[in-house]
């Protein structure tokens, strides 16, 4: 079983300890290394090691804005769960592609549900991302999902194809990006996510193989297990 490393970004020690305690309980034997940091720079420093699969992030860190961390980390492979007192920031956080938003004060069960969502064992939140963030040198570039045509897997990364033909490499795998994508996208293959309003037709090949033809001329393979759902789109 692969272990999950968790980074807790929280400036109050008692609260950080509570998050850690409940994370450990929810992850059980899957719990890997769990670190606690209390500021933006420390969090970014830890994330750059690439060692963490999950970040539990507070949005107010000694008066600093937790969104500064979020802007920079959504381009990383780690998933983010916000643990904050500011419930009114949830929509903005989901726009940034966070997996879940836990409001303070919280019970053990709520952290457990968030962990389940991370592990894909619970239904994802209905709120979806509106942007994807990409690292570009030291900068972080945010791209609206309206510009995205398709996403295809590239080993542990994902290639994001934009409407203007540009292709951007994202640090998250396609498996991690999929739960964040809104309903206007569909995962049609284990390595392909397409934007539905860019689909022009469905091609069939010998051997019960199928592919979607996109308006850009690209072809996206369709899994045999998903062909019935894809066909339903054309009816």
């Amino acid at each position, binding site marked *: 079983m692969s272990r999950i490393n968790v980074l807790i970004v929280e400036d109050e020690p008692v609260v950080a300890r*509570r998050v850690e305690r409940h994370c450990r309980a929810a992850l059980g034997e899957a719990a890997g290394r769990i670190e606690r940091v209390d500021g933006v720079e420390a969090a970014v420093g830890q994330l750059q090691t690439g060692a963490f699969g999950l970040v539990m992030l507070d949005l107010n860190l000694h008066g600093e804005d937790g969104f500064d961390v979020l802007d920079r980390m959504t381009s990383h492979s780690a998933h983010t769960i916000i643990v904050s007192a500011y419930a009114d920031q949830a929509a903005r956080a989901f726009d940034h592609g966070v997996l879940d938003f836990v409001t303070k004060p919280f019970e053990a069960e709520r952290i457990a549900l968030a962990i389940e969502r991370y592990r894909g064992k619970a239904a994802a939140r209905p709120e979806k991302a509106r942007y994807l963030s990409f690292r570009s040198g030291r900068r972080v570039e945010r791209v609206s999902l309206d510009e995205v045509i398709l996403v295809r897997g590239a080993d542990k990364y994902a290639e994001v194809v934009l409407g203007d033909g540009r292709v951007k490499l994202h640090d998250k795998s396609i498996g991690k990006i999929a739960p964040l994508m809104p309903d206007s996208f569909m995962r049609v293959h284990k390595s392909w996510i397409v934007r539905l309003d860019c689909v022009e037709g469905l091609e069939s090949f010998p051997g019960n193989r199928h592919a979607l033809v996109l308006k850009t001329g690209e072809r996206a393979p369709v899994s045999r297990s998903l062909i019935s759902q894809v066909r339903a789109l054309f009816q």
Partner: protein
Amino acid sequence: MQNIVMLRLLLVLLLVLGPPILLAPGGAAAQSDETPVVWRAGDDPGWSQPDLDTGDWQALAHFAGAQDGRFWIRARLDAPGLERPVLSIRSNAAYEVFLDGQRLGGSGRPGVPGNRALPELVRVGVPASLLDPGRHVLAFRMDGASLVDGDSAFLRFRLDDAAELARADRRRDAMDGAAALLAGFLLLTAAGIWIWGTRRVELVMVVGLCAGAILIFLLDTDGRAFATPLLPRFAAAILLTLASAAIYALTAAIIHRRLGLGRPRFWAVLAGMCLVVALLPLPFVGMEGDQRAFILLALLAVGMSLSAWPRRRLQAAVYAGAALVCLVAILLFSGQLRIFLALLVVLISVSMIVDVVMGEINMRRAELRASRLQAALVKRNIQPHFIMNSLTVAMELQETDAAAARDFIRALSEEFRALASMIDKPRVTLREELDLCRSHLAMMALRLEAQLTLETSGLDEAAECPPGLFHTLIENAISHNRYQGQSVTLTLSASRERTDLTYSLRAPLLGPRVTARPGSGSGTRYIEARLEEFAPGRWTFSSAPEGDVWVSRVRIVGGLA
């Protein structure tokens, strides 16, 4: 809003009615002021004859009174060849008037015991045949037992053409009407604000002042009310006396109040003395009593302004200037008291109404500001970061360390109790504020697993300060530093330089790369707003690092009031 509209209406009315009041012509100079007038004690019907030798008669300016009250007055009259001549006479004594020995008319019955004439304007039509162009003699047979030596202002007369006189009457009526209308508007404005707005005694004073002015404008047109008398002569005289006295007293009282002068009895006695002096028949002052009274009132206003000068320079300058303008008006327009009165009523009433309205507006603004600050204080302490983190800490401690949870909840409740006790106060004692600060530090120490203490020096804990002032500074220091797990001592000290009082809060700078610093956030805005409410225009606030501490300084210029 209602008051602002009324003020605008007032300004419009002032612009419309002001020029007619100020520019309306007064009556022409009384001819008695321009003609040599002589007098002689005694009573001889022959003294009415035009060719009498008056070499042994005396000038009226040296009037010494007569033992039995009987005397004669003679004056030369240059007849300018008027079409319909009318002789206007105003006298405090009963008289008969003769032109070139021929009786024209009179007022009262000279020589009849007990007969006393009230001051009244009498107009006597003169047959044109009696007034050939050239020099004539006007003679008055007088009965003035009550007249006093040296008072020569008891008789005034003039000769006009009837048509010209009617035009002058119309102009004067227009002026009086406009002035009464303006005074009426000011009266209604003051009464309206008193009824629907604020019930300030100054407004009642304005109502009284305007009411008195209206009576004078309507009734005292040389003893007539417009073309026809509105009231019996006696009633009008009583009302006019009361109105004049009210205007005099109210004007002095309003100026005294507006200038914030103390010693009300002293000024009341001084004003009373001025009035008595003004009404005393003085042999060396050739003007009427009411004119003298208002001149002395203007001088009294200048005196009050000078007395208030060291403390209220602007207001003192305004009132002294207004009094001098009125003084000049009454001297320039020689006896035209209505112009003086109109100026006086307008200046004082507008000043008072504007002051009351602005005071009301400022008071409402202050109340609104105070409400907002109260709300801000509450909001600061129920903001999500503070309250939700506190509750999360309480839950964690309750699950892991029941004793610590009890301590934490106790500290939190003490902070809220301290906060609740001061939430609706514009100022609290330093002791109350320090209690709140220490409760907050105790609670935050548990949250941050730190040791947080506050040391004080030089503080007068009975002194007052804005609520939440130092609490906010401490809150800022904690949220912008990394005191977790540390032993931290904050110090609050007070120092005095001359009359200025300075509070300094020193907070250690801890944490490797803290980017946000206090100085521009909601906490700073709250502190600045509270200080402005506490000591308007008399405070400074600074917040900056000094070595390894962050120092916030609050300076109250002039110290605590």
